[in-house]
């Protein structure tokens, strides 16, 4: 197996590819990014690669449920869940803001980026501009997340990064990080 960094053999910008795919335009290759993929990109690129290749790890292991499912019950107010293009599944608050629950204090940035991606997607694909709120149930705090120009850039960079990871023939090498110990792929990465 050779390592490859060629971007799928096309010169198309992954961001345009993603938008075209989302708009069902004809594209040289489909490219879709889910919210979970965006989150994983910031948690561990290797895990993202495994996920994109359907590398299932173990029939017994209950895979670590992370992210949006955590503390779903923490807020009693009404939330509407909606799914767009089968790609992103977001929760809307009554006031129309998109809410994302922050799973743990360590994973703030991945959750923030997932939320930013939703906002970006809504803006560029659906043509609606929304505000977001990152909920910290344990701390009973909320952080407003706005799609600034800077955040848009970061989302687009991440989309390009994700494209590179998922089209690469080999995964990025394992790197020990605090998250490893709670990762479903732990034994897979570290049994050597």
């Amino acid at each position, binding site marked *: 197996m050779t390592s490859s960094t060629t971007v799928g053999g096309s010169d198309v910008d992954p961001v345009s590819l993603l938008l075209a795919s989302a708009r069902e335009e004809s594209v040289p290759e489909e490219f879709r990014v889910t919210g979970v993929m965006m989150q994983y990109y910031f948690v561990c690129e290797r895990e993202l690669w495994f996920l994109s290749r359907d590398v*299932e790890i173990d*029939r*017994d292991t209950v895979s670590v449920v992370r992210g949006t499912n955590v503390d779903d019950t923490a807020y009693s107010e009404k939330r509407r869940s909606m799914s767009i293009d089968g790609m992103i599944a977001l929760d809307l608050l009554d006031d129309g803001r998109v809410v994302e629950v922050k799973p743990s204090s360590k994973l703030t940035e991945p959750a923030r980026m997932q939320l930013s991606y939703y906002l970006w997607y809504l803006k560029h694909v659906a043509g609606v501009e929304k505000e977001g709120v990152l909920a910290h149930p344990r701390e009973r705090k909320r952080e407003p997340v706005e799609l600034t120009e800077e955040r848009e850039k970061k989302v687009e960079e991440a989309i390009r990064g994700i494209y590179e990871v998922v089209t690469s023939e*080999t995964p990025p*090498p394992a790197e020990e990080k605090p998250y490893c110990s709670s990762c479903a792929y*732990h*034994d897979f*990465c570290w*049994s*050597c």
Partner: protein
Amino acid sequence: MDRNYHVFSAGRLERQDDTLRLVTEDGEKKYIPVENAEAVFLHGQIDYNTRLLSFLNKHGVAVHVFGWKDYYAGSLMPKRGQTSGQTVVEQVRAYDHPDRRLKLAKAIVEGSIHNMRTNVTYYAGRGHDFDEVIEDIDAAGERLESVTDVNEAMGTEATARKAYYSTFDAILPEGFRLDRREYNPPPNELNSLISFGNSLVYANCVSAIRATALDPTISYLHEPGERRYSLSLDLADLFKPVLADRVLFRLVNRNQIGLEDFETELGSCLLTERGRKTYGKAFEETLERTVEHPRLNRKVSYQYLMRIEAYKLKKHLLTGEPYEPFKRWW
């Protein structure tokens, strides 16, 4: 989920509501909790019906049948919980690629030789003079580096194994003689014990492989289709010295298994029910032993080491990261 249950007596195994029930020949009833079973090993004459099999299938429990001759008769595998076309494709690719296959085959032999050697040095440290054997094993190990095809790798393994087996007579008490390693059927007590242990290792490797999406019939050292689950043969080679042989040495040297635990029938020497029970119990205890894993930073059971090996192989196949064979490190 990883418990093995062994049934040694003769009788009928049946589904009783939501459990497994064994009715022995003298009418005794025993229940086997199925929820945490990985596999049921049948050693005696056991009757069962399709109702039982579909029940086990539903619960994901494998059945390993141990009969006569070389002991292992076959497995009834539940539908796999996991399938991955991609994994199988990568398995076949590696098999079909001469260099990649050879590399894997050599790695398995390398690990196997290392683990045999560890047993020899262990007993050399206990007053046996095995210098020559160690030299022979090391020579085989060196030859392995330059082999250019899988058959040669196989041959190197056989040479090392022959040297390794030559220590058994010295390690074991009077009465247990190997003479020559023979199976199908095993002609004497020691051959029989080795076969029984190896078949238990083999069946446990079948279970370990089943926990991944690897196809158990695509193998690298052994020729696919040589036996039903040839990938299990590959992995079992690594674990036989650590599991089967150590249990054997311990039981025989402590007189827990003696010549009276065998019966010879039509030229086959087979363990009696009592002998199988004793061995099976010691084997299961060994599977549960743990050792500190240097990379995982926790203790893992010997049984889990087989699972890890399947993961390592799968990881190599899917990512191209090198495969390092299991070598006893403690």
